[in-house]
């Protein structure tokens, strides 16, 4: 049984940035605050950019070991949004 929740909720994210290194890990989210609860990420599944016209958004597919989270980073407004949560029971 799996459940996909589309939230579109603005979240606070702690991420690290490093120069050079592997392209997909230059920016790496570590944890986020969701409904007062801190969620620590254990793995970056995939990162890819997506554009709507000239506006760029970076999508980070993260996991905390239980659920998978799709985070969107708006490169223009510098905001993080939790787009989707995938839970498998």
């Amino acid at each position, binding site marked *: *049984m*799996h459940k*996909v929740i589309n939230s579109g909720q603005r979240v606070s994210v702690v991420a690290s940035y490093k120069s050079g290194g*592997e*392209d*997909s890990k230059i920016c790496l989210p570590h944890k986020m605050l969701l409904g007062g609860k801190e969620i620590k990420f254990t*793995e970056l*599944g*995939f990162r*890819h*950019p*997506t*554009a*709507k*016209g*000239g*506006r760029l958004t970076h*999508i980070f*597919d993260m*996991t905390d070991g*239980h*659920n*998978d989270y799709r985070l969107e980073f708006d490169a223009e407004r510098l905001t993080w949004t939790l787009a989707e949560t*995938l839970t*498998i029971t």
Partner: protein
Amino acid sequence: MHLRLNPEDPQIMHIDLNSAFATTEQQAHPSLRGRPMGVTNRISTHCCVIACSYEAKALGIKVGMRLSEAKLIYPEFIILETDPPKYSHVYKKLLNIMRSYSPKVEMKSIDEGIIDFNQTREINTRPLEEIGLEIKERIKQEIGCWMRVNIGIGTNRFLAKQAASWHKPDGLDRLDSSNLLKYYKQIELTDLTGIALHYQARLNAMGIFTVLDFFKAEPDFLHRQVFHSIIGEHWYKRLRGYEVDDKPTKLGQVGRQWVLGKSSDDNSYIIPCFHYLCETTAQKLRFNNKSARGVMVALHLQSGEYWVKRKMYKSAFFTNQDVYSKALYLINQRPKNEAIKQMSITCYQLEDSFRNQLGIFEEVNKAHWLTEAVDEINDRFGNFAICSAESLPGKKLVKQKIPFGSTKYFELLLK
């Protein structure tokens, strides 16, 4: 013409991402790894599985199966909707890796491509098997640890593709004059790329039942008796490892087709969708820098009949308005009170665009400038930021699907 097996050292490498869309989703969602799952364009009970994971394939779930059928086999089967930007990113990464080995790279589709090492061997002297293993490792490092590819090495494109499908998943095989006949003994006619049931029946009718029978057939026999065309000789050469599939193809037509969500003859439902199809067809024309002189509209009707109407024009056209007005003239001639199941619009008789040339008539120039301005705005703010008001409901109903074949419209699709 009598040829022996091509004795040359193989220089063509075929790279094929295993279950590309499903594997990419498993890469993005670690909790899906090792589970039977698949992807579809739009989730509904009757939707089709367009790609499934190897775990699902092992249970007997196949591509093209309805979701309801897949759930009967495995009730916990997980299905996700396609995510084109994700696959585009994988495609671009794969292309970058391939281009780092040779300037001659050709993508055959979104998940497979060819590296031609001919004329690079003076610089790059490493064995292709070693390069193949390195590419597998780079794909894991640069795209994701769950990504797996099949790699085939051969003296022509056909044999490289055959080698890539020999040991799935994650295989690396080489086919050349030393092992080709042994390989042909192991496979069936329909295992050959390009031979499906129809061609198999044709070969069987002429006494060819195995791949070795096919291989031993004379070129003249294949030409005159089996295929009745030059295709017979192409197969004769292809099976011996000589290249016949490297010719560029000419763009003959562009178009869109759509299966209606519900069969209907209601203009208020059909025309906005049809208008949207016309606008995206015109975009494809301009994307290819082409103009068309012919337009064709084809409909599959609820009654089972197929209706088609076409018209040629003296002057070429490429604007949204031109394509729509010409296609609307045709669709308005369709049989009345007949529900439509599927509709398609095709522009043909393509020629290089004359957009840089100023016309004599001001009105024509204005229409062209307007199209250029709208394209420029849409490039900046996203596709369909400006479009015809009538096509807006159509945009919501007609979902853009991920292209399986050619990747030439990928950039256009993702705008």
